[in-house]
């Protein structure tokens, strides 16, 4: 998050703000691009020169080649796409159920004293526990199938969204509420027309944080207990020292996380264009 926000702040002091007002300076992008290119060049140089054995670090071209093989023929009975699909399906389901339940729960916590009293301690109790610590319990209760993994991700995503939503609801501008009331708004109308839209930037931030936590939890869970998925692919390849598959798996995991983050930022710009505007 912060790696994104800091350039945006620096930009205000810089000379040329960009059109959207949300992208960091082009020069910063150039520096980031050059860093990536340098990293790839070093990787290629040390492998091409034979400095490091392919067992420990395969060359970029070998990883790419393996990627092609994985995508067409597969590894451990499944292609790369099938592993990817298994992981995405789990996080998709977890995210869907988390959004559907955490947002109403967050609104209840933020808007209702009794709901806050009941739910707040429950969430605060389990939130700091690393999901992998309660994974064994979930496996005992729900078995080793899809349900336990989706449930684990669901729990990991639920807390950040519920807490962010409650914060958003609690920090709604009181003057806006009064303005709506003096225009005749009922309590239900206040929630629908003022509170939820006001909290939307916080809700989306909660989803961003939740998705990040959920994705790392999922991959870690697949390392431990799964027969498909990106985490499983990396783990089983490591057992047979198939380093190129391990590296490829890690790259794909990173790419997906990056894509999800970018997608949510784009969604944030589209859904809450007023956020961060001076008003």
């Amino acid at each position, binding site marked *: 998050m912060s790696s994104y926000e800091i350039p945006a702040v620096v930009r205000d002091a810089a000379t040329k703000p960009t059109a959207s007002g949300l992208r960091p300076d082009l020069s910063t992008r150039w520096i980031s691009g050059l860093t990536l290119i340098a990293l790839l060049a070093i990787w290629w140089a040390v492998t091409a020169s034979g400095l490091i054995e392919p067992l420990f670090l395969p060359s970029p071209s070998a990883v790419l080649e393996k990627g092609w093989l994985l995508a067409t023929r597969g590894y451990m009975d499944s292609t790369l796409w099938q592993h990817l699909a298994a992981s995405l399906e789990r996080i998709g389901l977890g995210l869907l159920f988390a959004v559907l339940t955490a947002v109403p729960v967050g609104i209840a916590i933020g808007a209702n004293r009794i709901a806050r009293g009941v739910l707040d301690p429950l969430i605060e109790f389990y939130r700091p526990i690393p999901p992998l610590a309660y994974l064994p319990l979930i496996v005992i209760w729900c078995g080793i199938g899809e349900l336990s993994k989706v449930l684990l991700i669901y729990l990991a995503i639920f807390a950040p969204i519920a807490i962010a939503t409650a914060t958003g609801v609690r920090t709604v*501008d009181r*003057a*806006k509420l*009064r*303005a*709506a*009331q*003096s*225009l*005749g*708004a*009922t309590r239900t*109308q206040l929630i629908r*027309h*003022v509170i939820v*839209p006001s909290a*939307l930037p916080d809700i989306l931030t909660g989803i961003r944080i939740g998705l990040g936590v959920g994705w790392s939890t999922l991959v870690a869970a697949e390392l431990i207990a799964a027969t498909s998925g990106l985490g499983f692919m990396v783990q089983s390849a490591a057992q047979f020292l198939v380093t190129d598959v391990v590296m490829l798996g890690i790259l794909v995991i990173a790419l997906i996380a990056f894509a999800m983050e970018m997608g949510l930022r784009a969604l944030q710009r589209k859904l*809450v*264009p*007023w956020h961060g*505007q*001076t*008003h």
Partner: protein
Amino acid sequence: MALLQLERISAQYPGATEPVLADISLTLGPKQLLVALGPSGSGKTSLLNLIAGFVEPSAGQITLDGTPIKGPGAERGVVFQDDVLLPWQDVLANVGFGLELAGVARQTREARAREMLALVDLAGFEQRRVWQLSGGQKQRVGLARALAADPRVLLMDEPFGALDAFTREQMQELLLQVWQRTAKPVFLITHDIEEAVFLATDLILLAPNPGQIVERLSLDFGQRYGAGESARSIKSDRRFIETREHVLAKVFSQRSATRPQERA
């Protein structure tokens, strides 16, 4: 015949020893623009919040058309000092928001919102986003939004307090024009003496510790503006200046009267 009536209103915050308002009685009828003027601490914001229904009086009764008021309601439109527009809606939807809450059909409320925007000189701004507006434009949208819901009275909480001096002058003239055209009774609070004297048909001066009315004046400078005289000519008129200085002197005499108490 009074539309809005306050009878012996007192107000006290929970836990406070002194009341913020003591024994306030006033009436607001049609064709009146009542201005409550006072320094900070004189309870003028509390007075407006009481009438709007955001807080309840500790004693006394407030009635609108003979019915006691209970909580905030659409028949008492409020224009706030700060920008309280909804940034997720465009200007047109903001102005029509009260009608949307009342369940008015989209076409009807948009037509009404356009009419109100034209009234505050913002025709053509319908699709603008709230954050693209200047401070004065936001206040005009706020005024149009309050008027669109067709309230019985209009309450204005230091509506031009956050604006620069030039914009404030323009907004005062705009308010007088709108007030004349809509014939809505207006209750406005301000700490700007010149603004109060220029706008008010009826002016009440509030003094602090506890908030009470120490002077009531009937004025006609707003009517003279309505009759076609220019704002500058009215404000530089001798009678205007005399009235302004009279009110100013009254404010300061109240201040020196309360000072020994503050020290004690």
